[in-house]
């Protein structure tokens, strides 16, 4: 099987406010264990309800860094190469509780926030929600389109 190289979107074709990507990520408890192992973040509030309850949480939460990590993926797929992401920042505003049976679905909408034609850089603003509530604030990536 051969795959053709992804085509980088051109800055000229973009307008502030355009939605460039959207995606939903169904998380399960398994996703959290996998991320714990991959990242080395073994804080038990991400896999043990008893520990989560003991510190006053409703139950096991997704790692904020997992939410941050998946939220950029629709942008990576859109630009075709994760190396085009020059800068990425988020604020962790609300937790994502992951039910042992139902899991949690995190939804990402990526919009053009600003365009810098001279630098060839687009600022992409992410709206990241769980149960229709925003969980990341000021979630922005600067991507190179040159």
């Amino acid at each position, binding site marked *: 099987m051969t795959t053709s190289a992804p085509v980088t979107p051109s800055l000229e074709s973009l307008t502030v406010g355009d939605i460039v990507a959207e995606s939903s990520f169904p998380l399960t408890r398994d996703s959290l264990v996998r991320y714990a192992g991959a*990242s080395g973040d073994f804080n038990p509030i991400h896999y043990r309800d008893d520990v989560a309850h003991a510190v006053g949480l409703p139950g096991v939460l997704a790692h904020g860094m997992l939410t941050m990590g998946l939220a950029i993926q629709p942008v990576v797929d859109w630009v075709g190469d994760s190396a085009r992401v020059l800068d990425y920042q988020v604020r962790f505003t609300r937790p994502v509780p992951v039910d042992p049976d139902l899991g949690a679905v995190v939804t990402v909408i990526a919009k053009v926030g600003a365009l810098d034609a001279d630098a060839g850089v687009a600022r992409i603003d992410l709206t990241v929600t769980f149960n229709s509530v925003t969980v990341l604030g000021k979630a922005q990536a600067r991507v190179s389109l040159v």
Partner: protein
Amino acid sequence: MSVNPAIQGRVFPAVPPYLVGREKVREFSRAVFATNPINFDPDAARAAGHSDIVAPPTFAVVVQEATLAQLLAEPDAGIDFTRVVHGDQRFSYSRPIVAGDELTATLRVASVKSLGGHSMVTAESTIVDATGAHVVTATSTLVVRGDE
């Protein structure tokens, strides 16, 4: 105990070098739901101009982690781990991380601020490659809840 404001500006010793393994990048990529071939397939990565597979944008947190552990363990910092909440995170890249990189991270406490009984500690970990060239700066703001 509250956060010691005197740690602002403190630079910690560099942590031992982190060798970025190809399988670690693949494992991390799967964990963050990456699907791009350049995160998994060396041929696809080379075709895109990279020397090996490329790590996802948030992979730098794996390298940064040891520097945050230094900060939390600093005896006079006054940061109670059980009261810490991750407030903000940022990665600013000069170039992407690729498998085979040997990365060294150095943490500097950029600021310590008080806000309504809580402390906000901003830690800036500068990550360089084996030649000393800048790769990425990982910045975390930790919110340390004050006494109730």
